[in-house]
């Protein structure tokens, strides 16, 4: 995949690498790749021989791609806070958790006190207990609630910087999952079901109306029928649409006035303030937009797993998300996407599969997944040594980091390098 990142020279002024044509080109690439992947898994994979089909199902199952898309959505959200606005957030998992639980509350039989069920355009079977709302609407509700939560967490941190900001966000990321763990008995009311979590959730449907499904090229494409656990292709399309929305919002905001304000705060908060950038408004907007996407990621995650459990929302998740942003290229949406897809695949499928193949080949019994963090940490160390700006850095970040290297060399050589 060519990336065509513009090369910067000393004589060339810094320019936005997100000009309109650039954005359109990337939108085309994203849509094209997403479409090719769907066509491949829907139409081509069933035609491949058993050996090739098994190989692909083992090394790149569509279910793993769907899970990776959850990470992509959340990483794009975190990128707005960390990459755009430069606000270190170590508790992003809290929004993921809130989004997941909102999906569980609004799309399951959990609230069995509601004996006849509350239904709104849902694909759930009739006459069930609980609340059953259409998942598109749940996405919006979850995003809005998380955006509000983002403002709540953002407000007390406005005066904080660096380590102190990180500590406050870390605290928030620890408190929220604990609330879900202990929420089984809130004045006698079971709000979260504690560590038992909530499962299963309602099956979602792509659209609330229309024909149940259409036939295309020998494949059945669901339209309004509920998606079962094996409709991973249809779920892939839904998750891609949510990811595409996040990418679109992220790119458009980056180009606009708010995006430029975020970058100004990131580069030099004092200078930005002196130039008239509204710090409070801009920072809160970054938290809100990032949290909105975290909420979307939470709903997608809950739908993907058909369940939510509080102990899944651990501090490690926030760190892995941050690593995805740093590794991919902080500030660059496409870099973050590549980082998220790569690390998510490596965690869920790549390393276990590599281990299986190695053990099969050499007759060993090494538990490869247990070395996950060793490999992961080594990659991060190597990246920091040789490519601090990430795999696909934002042009501005790259130039800042390269400038420092050049100055060091000039000091040593006493002249131009």
């Amino acid at each position: 995949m060519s990336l065509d990142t513009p090369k910067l020279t000393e004589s060339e002024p810094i320019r936005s690498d997100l000009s309109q044509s650039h954005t359109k080109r990337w939108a085309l690439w994203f849509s094209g790749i997403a479409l090719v992947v769907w066509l491949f898994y829907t139409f081509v994979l069933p035609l491949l021989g058993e050996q090739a089909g098994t190989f692909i199902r083992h090394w790149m199952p569509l279910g793993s791609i769907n899970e990776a898309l959850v990470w992509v959505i959340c990483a794009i959200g975190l990128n707005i806070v960390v990459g755009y606005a430069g606000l270190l957030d170590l508790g992003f998992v809290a929004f993921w958790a809130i989004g997941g639980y909102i999906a569980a509350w609004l799309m399951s039989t959990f609230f069995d006190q509601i004996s006849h069920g509350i239904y709104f355009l849902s694909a759930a079977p009739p006459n069930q207990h609980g609340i059953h709302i259409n998942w598109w609407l749940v996405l919006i509700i979850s995003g809005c609630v998380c955006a509000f939560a983002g403002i709540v967490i953002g407000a007390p941190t406005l005066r904080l910087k660096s380590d102190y900001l990180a500590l406050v966000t870390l605290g928030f990321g620890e408190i929220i999952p604990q609330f879900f763990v202990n929420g089984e008995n809130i004045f006698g009311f079971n709000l979260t079901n504690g560590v038992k979590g909530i499962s299963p959730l309602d099956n979602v449907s792509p659209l609330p109306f229309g024909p149940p499904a259409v036939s295309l090229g020998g494949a059945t494409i669901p339209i309004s029928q509920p998606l079962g656990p094996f409709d991973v292709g249809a779920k892939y399309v839904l998750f891609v649409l949510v990811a595409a929305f996040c990418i679109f919002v992220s790119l458009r905001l980056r180009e606009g006035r708010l995006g430029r304000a975020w970058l100004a705060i990131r580069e030099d908060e004092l200078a930005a303030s002196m130039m008239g950038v509204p710090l409070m408004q801009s920072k809160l907007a970054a938290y809100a937009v990032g949290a909105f996407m975290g909420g979307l990621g939470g709903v997608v995650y809950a739908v993907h797993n058909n369940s939510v459990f509080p102990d899944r929302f651990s501090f490690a998740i926030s760190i892995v998300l941050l690593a995805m942003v740093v590794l991919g290229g902080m500030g660059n949406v496409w870099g973050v996407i590549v980082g998220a897809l790569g690390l998510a695949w490596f965690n869920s499928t790549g390393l276990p599969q590599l281990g299986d193949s190695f053990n099969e080949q050499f007759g060993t019994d090494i538990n490869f997944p247990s070395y996950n963090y060793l490999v992961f940490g080594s990659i991060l160390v190597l990246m920091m040594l040789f490519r601090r700006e990430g795999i696909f850095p934002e042009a501005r970040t790259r130039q800042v980091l390269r400038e420092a290297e050049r100055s060091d060399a000039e000091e040593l050589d006493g002249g131009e390098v």
Partner: protein
Amino acid sequence: MHKSLKMITAAVVGAVALAACGGSGASPGSTGGSTGKTLIIGTDFPLQGAAADETIQVNQAIELYLEQIGHKVGNYTIELKKYDDSSAAAGKWDPALCTKNAADHVANANEIAVVGAFNSGCSKIEVPILNQDPNGPMLMVSNSNTNPGLTKSWDPGEPDKYYPMSKRNYARVVTTDDNQGRAAAQFMVHDLGVKKCYVLNDNDTYGQGVAQAFVTEAANLQLQILGNEPWDRAQPSYTGLFEKIKALGPDCIFLGGSFDNNGGQLVRDKVAVLGDNTAVKLMGPDGFTGFTVLDTLPESQGMYLSFPGLTRAGLTAQGGEAAKLLAAYAAKYGAPPTTSYALYGIAAVQVILAAIAKSDGTRKSVTSQLFSGAGVTIPADVSAIGKAFSIDTASGDVTVLDTTIEVIKDNAESFVKIWPITS
């Protein structure tokens, strides 16, 4: 931009053209009924984190058993495929991997049934997915799930919400937490003569369940429960907690939970504050069994344990097929398994093999054999758990409700007695 557009267009056209050329492919998950074919049994355990020591032994025990039977049952060749439902990030079972594994079980065309999951929470995710297998339902038999809700009415909506196709496809070869908690309370009252107990739980699904069962039975036995509260696994010390408990004057402590939730520190601090286990009795459920680290702690000596079945120590003393399996395991791997769940892993495989032997080799038929007609019975002379057992065709629960009582003595878990469940 034009170049990019051309490349994408070519790729899309190519994919569609390939699709148009083909006919209908083999549906994933289809299993034929022909004889002499190879069938796969999957195991689905957390192979990372604290439970890994136990689950690796279960896998080894199953491998050993399949070798002993020549990987054959009837006309079928049986292979084993090991799935890991844990992640390094979680350090334990991971819901995302449970979801993925369930889809993989179904997609693996020759896979006929699954042994697992090790944790009830993971089973609650996987069972509904396997239940909806278009070529199934696909059978899952657990060797270690003790949460009652998987098979019988417990929390709201359970167990029906795990079976969306309204057909059972889940069975287990161990008894449930309600029976284990009940047995522990009965043993403490009748054999140890305790009057006032304080109950601690690890705030996990399993720990809460078994602690609540203990508390419920205590009420029937006129055993006074001074309190039932969670312990925080992240605490470096529990002396403050036990000082508070000491003031209430208990003569027993029941730990509902798992040793890997900082159970070692809890046991040490219990003895430091309340004295050794002869003064104030200490008892834990099977979440505290199978840990060499616990067994060799000076503070754990005299601690009583319950296990929802028959334990390794008891089965060795009893002799028969189970003892032979333990000896064979020790011969192959250098030492007997530390966990009694290893033998229950073999018992789960025996149930699946018996169902395969009666079936036509399809998933649907295998599941049907277990849950209809006479069901499956494993006779005593071949049973990995030392006595005949069968699976209830209505619920999927095992019919043997024995709970074993052990005591930690001389740095090992020693058999005390089999506790018969009485209601």
